[in-house]
C-alpha cells in the first residue's frame, strides 16, 4: 500500500531542490551547471520507495532525484553541487558524481550507460555474500543503444542477478528523439535476453512504485532482473547550459504540452490539502537550511586536490618538479 503523503514529499523535495539548484547555477554559486531532473521526480520517488535502506542504486548525469530519493542529506547534496568540503563527495564529485555509500548510493555517473554493469556487479556480489540486497540502476532512453547496457542485460539474465533496470524514457537523448535513435523498442531489448520488461507511466509515482515493488520482489527472491521503462518528459533543459545557448530541438508548445501531466500535481491530488501544505512548508525550511549550509561551508583546500586518488594514499608526483 503506497504511502501517498510520503511519495508526495519525495516528489516535492526533488522538485524544489532542482529549482533551488537551477537558481544557484544562475547566481554562479554552482560551478559548471546541472542536468535538471524536473518532470521525472515520480520515477525516483516510486522506485526508491520500493527499496530497503541497504539496497543500492547507481545513477546518471541527471541524478539529483535518485540521490535524494534514496536518502542522501539534501544539505550535503547541495554542498556537493556547490563544490564545498562538506559535500557528499567533499566537493570532488559535483552534480554528475554525487555518491553516498552510507545510504546505498554507489554514485551518479557521467558516462551514458556506464553504471548498468556496476549495479549488476554489486548485485552479483550481494548474492555471493549471502545477502538478499537488490541493486537498482537508472539510465535514460539514450543509453539503450550503448553496447555496455546490452552486454549487461545478457550477464544479468544469465546469472539471474538481483538487479532492476530502470530506463527513464524522457523522449530525448540531449536533442535526439527516441524515434530517431532507437530501433525496435526499449522493452524489446530486455525481452530479447529473456528479461521481463514493463512499460510504466513515469509521471505517476504510485504506478511506478507498484511496478518497482514487483520487480524488486522478483530480484530479491532470486528470480532475476526486470526492466522498467518509465515514460516521462523532461520539463527543463538537458543541461542548464541550454538556458543561454537555446538549441532548437523542441518547440515551446511541445514543452508546455509535455508539462501538462505533472508528477507533482498527480501525486499532490492524492494528499489532503492540509497535509500537503505542511509538507510544502517543511520542505521549504529544509531547503532554506540546505542552501545556507552549502553556501556557508568552506571551499576545499587546493593543496588537497589529489587526496583520495588512491585508496592507500599513494602520493604521486606533482605537475612540476
Amino acid at each position, binding site marked *: 500500500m503506497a504511502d501517498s503523503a510520503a511519495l508526495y514529499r519525495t516528489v516535492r523535495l526533488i522538485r524544489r531542490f532542482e529549482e533551488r539548484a537551477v537558481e544557484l547555477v544562475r547566481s554562479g554559486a554552482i560551478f559548471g551547471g546541472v542536468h535538471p531532473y524536473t518532470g521525472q521526480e515520480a520515477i525516483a520517488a516510486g522506485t526508491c520507495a520500493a527499496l530497503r535502506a541497504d539496497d543500492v542504486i547507481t545513477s546518471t548525469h541527471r541524478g539529483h532525484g535518485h540521490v535524494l530519493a534514496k536518502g542522501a542529506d539534501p544539505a550535503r547534496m547541495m554542498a556537493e553541487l556547490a563544490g564545498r568540503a562538506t559535500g557528499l563527495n567533499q*566537493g570532488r564529485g559535483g552534480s554528475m558524481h554525487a555518491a553516498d555509500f552510507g545510504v546505498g548510493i554507489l554514485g551518479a555517473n557521467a558516462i551514458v550507460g556506464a553504471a548498468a554493469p556496476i549495479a549488476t556487479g554489486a548485485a552479483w556480489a550481494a548474492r555471493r555474500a549471502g545477502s538478499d540486497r537488490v541493486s537498482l540502476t537508472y539510465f535514460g532512453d539514450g543509453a539503450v543503444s550503448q*553496447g555496455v547496457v546490452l552486454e549487461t542485460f545478457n550477464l544479468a539474465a544469465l546469472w539471474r542477478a538481483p538487479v532492476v533496470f530502470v530506463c527513464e524514457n524522457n523522449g530525448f537523448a540531449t536533442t*535526439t528523439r527516441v524515434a530517431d535513435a532507437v530501433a525496435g523498442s526499449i522493452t524489446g531489448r530486455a525481452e530479447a535476453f529473456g528479461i521481463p520488461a514493463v512499460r510504466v507511466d513515469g509521471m505517476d509515482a504510485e504506478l511506478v512504485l507498484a511496478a518497482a515493488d514487483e520487480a524488486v520482489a522478483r530480484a530479491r527472491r532470486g528470480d532475476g532482473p526486470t526492466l522498467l521503462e518509465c515514460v516521462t518528459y523532461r520539463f527543463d533543459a538537458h543541461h542548464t547550459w541550454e538556458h543561454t545557448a537555446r538549441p532548437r530541438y523542441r518547440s515551446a508548445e511541445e514543452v508546455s504540452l509535455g508539462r501538462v501531466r505533472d508528477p507533482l500535481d498527480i501525486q499532490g491530488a492524492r494528499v489532503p490539502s492540509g497535509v500537503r501544505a505542511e509538507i510544502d512548508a517543511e520542505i521549504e525550511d529544509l531547503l532554506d537550511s540546505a542552501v545556507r549550509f552549502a553556501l556557508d561551508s568552506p571551499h576545499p583546500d587546493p593543496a588537497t586536490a589529489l587526496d583520495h586518488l588512491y585508496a592507500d594514499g599513494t602520493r604521486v608526483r606533482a605537475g612540476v618538479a
Partner: protein
Amino acid sequence: MTILSYLKALNRALTDEMERDPTVCVFGEDVRAAVTNVTAGLAKRFGTERVLDMPISEQAFTGVATGAALSGQRPLIEYQIPALLFLAFEQIANQAHKFSLMTGGQARVPVTYLVPSSGSRDGWAGQHSDHPYSMFAHVGVKTAVPATPTDAYGLLVTALRDDDPVVVFAPAGAMGRREDVDLARLAPIPLGTGRIHRPGADVTVVAVGHLVHLALDVAGELADTISVEVFDPRTLHPFDWQGLAASLDRTGRLVVIDDSNRSCGIAGEILATAAEQMHLLAPPKRVTRPDGAVLPFAEALDRALQPTHEQVRTAIQSVAKAGGFR
C-alpha cells in the same frame, strides 16, 4: 580583415571541405542541432544524409566511420566530450589505425575525430575533463592540438584531407580565442610543422594547445629579464623535431607545458628526445598535470591540477639561470 573565432574556424573548415569534397560527412551526437556549434548550419546546407545524428553508441559509430572510410567516404566524427574517446579507443587505436599496415597498404582510413572543448571546461568534474592527446600520440594515431583560430582551420582541413585517421583536440581553453584574419589566406597546415609564436634567445618554451597563450603571457611578463621563445608543435604526432632542434640550437634551454598527466605524457617524450639528441645547456623542465590526475569538481581543486601561470613562470626562471649540466 575579419575577426575569426576558434569555434567559427572549425565550422568554416568543415563547411569548406564539405563544399569542396562530397565524400566528407559528419557523424556525431546532436550534430544536427549543433549543440557544440561546430556543426552549425551543416545539416541545413548539406542535408541529413551527410550530417548524421547518431544514437549514443560511440563504439558502433566510430567503427561505422572506419567502414565508410574504407569505402570511399571521409567521415568526421564529433565527440562531445573527451572521455568518449575512451569508449571508442579500440575502434580507433586497434581498428582504424591498424588497417593500413595490416592490409599491406590496401586500405586507407581517412577519418577525422574532432573533440571540441577538450580538457577541463570548468566544473564538469572527473569524467568530462581529461585531455588524452598523449595517449593517441603514444599509439601512433596522428594527433593535432591547434591553439589559434588560423591553426584550427588549417589543421582541421588537413586532417579531413589526410588519408589516415587523425584526432583533432580543440582545447576548451582555446575555444574562445579570436583572431583578426584575412579569410582568403586561410590555408591547410601540414602535420608535423611547428610554429614559433614569439622568437627568443634564452629559453624555448614548448606549449601544447591552449597553453600556448599561457606561455605567451608569461613570456611577455618576463621580457625585460629573459628572452623566451614560444614554440607550438601544433601536432604531437607527427612532431616537428627539426623545428624544436633548431630552436634549442638558439636557446639551449627548454621548458615544456603540457595539460597531460605527467607520467607517459607528451612532455616526457619531448624532454627525452631533447636530452638524447638536442643542444641543451641546462636540465629541462616540464609543467604538466600531476601523475595520473583525476580532476576534482570544485573550482579551486580543478585549477590546482592544471599547469598554472605561476608554475610556468617559476620553471622558466629556474631553467634560465641554471648553470648547465653538472
